[in-house]
């Protein structure tokens, strides 16, 4: 048998890319995956609907759009209550609610929070997002260069969340941002500590707000709470878990989107010129950046009974990681998936997940992306990647991060008073 025939005949060999077999020894965190993302995604879509990982105690990885949709809709077979990633059970880490809940309790929280994240509610935040974005750009625009993540992308989502959604003092932001960063992107064994820090701060803030006059915002809604499936009012710690989830879901994820948008503008000058000449193209261009730079690599579900996916038997208790970033590149749904096409029609953006747990903050993420794209085109119109550099990607089970993005541009004037 020749080597070529061997490759064609044995599915396993097709899974070997960058020195790792991604069909039988997948690892979401591995450098072999993050360094060869496009190629590995193509390989699993072509030949491996369900990959096996022995990392973190073992899990399955599903990458197909249709398979993920089926699993997300069937929450009775695929529970979220055993955690969003492996090894979440059995410790005292802060939980993330409603992410780690099932309907109907999960649904009641979604219904309560939905009003504050609807397109209409989020539209009213636009001026606040613009003010925060302009203030951040003012800090580096005279320099002509910056690391866009350190200077902008890592900060805007937190500033927006804390100033426009929560109303906490901006002075507290560096501490909170560092803790949230540790929780989501830190070394695996320190993530629990990160969550605990975030939880402790928000617990204190919520207790403070409970003593104050209601403001009618979403903090008050969380304090009001919903009933559990036993018909009892949600206990205090559940309310903290909801608050932590809203924060955790919105920071790193949106940072990655913003970095992706800057990378896109820097590397696609023809598209950038077209969008600058017609700003009505911005929303769809942002939607395509959401798909291409999909920031959630995967989130987990656990089988509640023996079942199967595409003929692969799954045992009760097994964890399946749903590979959203790969599904957002599924060639059965997105033609030429590794190319950014700003006119692409995206009926359902798998970057936000699907079904009951679909990202509740999608409209806030879109708004920040749209504001950032417009302001970058206006204020840094010739931004480019620094010569000889390109962004580095890294994976942390749940997120697909862009680690650094060194940009250069013609220095411009500040527009604000430096606050």
């Amino acid at each position, binding site marked *: 048998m020749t080597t070529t025939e061997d490759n064609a005949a044995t599915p396993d060999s097709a899974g070997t890319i960058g020195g790792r077999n991604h069909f039988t020894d997948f690892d979401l965190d591995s450098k072999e995956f993050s360094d060869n993302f496009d190629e590995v995604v193509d390989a699993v879509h072509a030949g491996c609907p369900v990959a096996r990982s022995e990392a973190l105690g073992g899990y399955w990885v599903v990458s197909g759009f249709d398979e993920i949709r089926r699993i997300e*809709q069937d929450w009775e077979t695929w529970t979220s209550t055993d955690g969003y990633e492996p090894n979440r059970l059995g410790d005292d880490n802060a939980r993330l609610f409603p992410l780690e809940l099932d309907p109907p309790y999960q*649904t009641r929280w*979604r219904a309560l929070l*939905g009003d504050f994240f609807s397109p209409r509610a989020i539209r009213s935040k636009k001026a606040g997002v613009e003010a925060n974005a302009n203030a951040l750009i003012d800090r580096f625009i005279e320099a002509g260069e910056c690391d866009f993540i350190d200077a902008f992308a890592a900060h805007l989502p937190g500033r927006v969340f804390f100033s426009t959604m929560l109303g906490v003092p901006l002075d507290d932001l560096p501490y909170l941002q560092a803790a949230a960063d540790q929780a989501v992107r830190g070394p695996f064994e320190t993530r629990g500590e990160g969550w605990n820090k975030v939880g402790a701060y928000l617990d204190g803030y919520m207790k403070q707000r409970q003593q104050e006059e209601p403001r009618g915002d979403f903090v008050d809604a969380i304090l009001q709470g919903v009933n559990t499936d036993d018909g009892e009012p949600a206990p205090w710690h559940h309310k903290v878990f909801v608050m932590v989830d809203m924060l955790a879901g919105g920071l790193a994820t949106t940072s990655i989107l913003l970095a992706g948008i800057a990378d896109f503008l820097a590397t696609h000058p023809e598209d950038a010129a077209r969008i600058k000449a017609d700003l009505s193209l911005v929303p769809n261009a942002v939607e395509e950046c959401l798909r291409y730079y999909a920031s959630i690599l995967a989130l987990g579900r656990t089988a509640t009974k023996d079942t199967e996916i595409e003929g692969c038997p799954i045992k009760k208790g097994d964890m399946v990681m749903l590979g959203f970033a790969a599904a957002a590149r599924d060639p059965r749904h997105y033609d030429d998936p590794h190319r950014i096409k700003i006119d692409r029609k995206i009926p359902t953006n798998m970057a936000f997940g699907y079904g*009951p747990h*679909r990202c509740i903050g999608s409209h806030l993420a879109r708004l920040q992306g749209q504001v950032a794209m417009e302001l970058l085109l206006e204020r840094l119109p010739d931004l480019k990647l620094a010569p000889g550099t390109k962004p580095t990607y890294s994976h942390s089970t749940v997120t697909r991060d862009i680690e650094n993005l060194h940009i250069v541009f013609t220095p411009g004037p500040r527009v604000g008073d430096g606050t």
Partner: protein
Amino acid sequence: MKAIIDSALCAAHGLCAATAPEVYDIDDDGYNVAAGTTVEIPAGQEAAARRGAAACPEAAIQVVE
């Protein structure tokens, strides 16, 4: 009050029916059964209609007076 349900936007997340089952119903594939039509909201169910519309991730449901 009416709810206009856009069939091009409905993507079968199922959140309308989960949030406001008294107003919205979904088919076996998760799509709103009334997608592509305008539904008259019975008196007394206005608040539920609004909640269900707000829950839709695709903003496929528009509630009008």
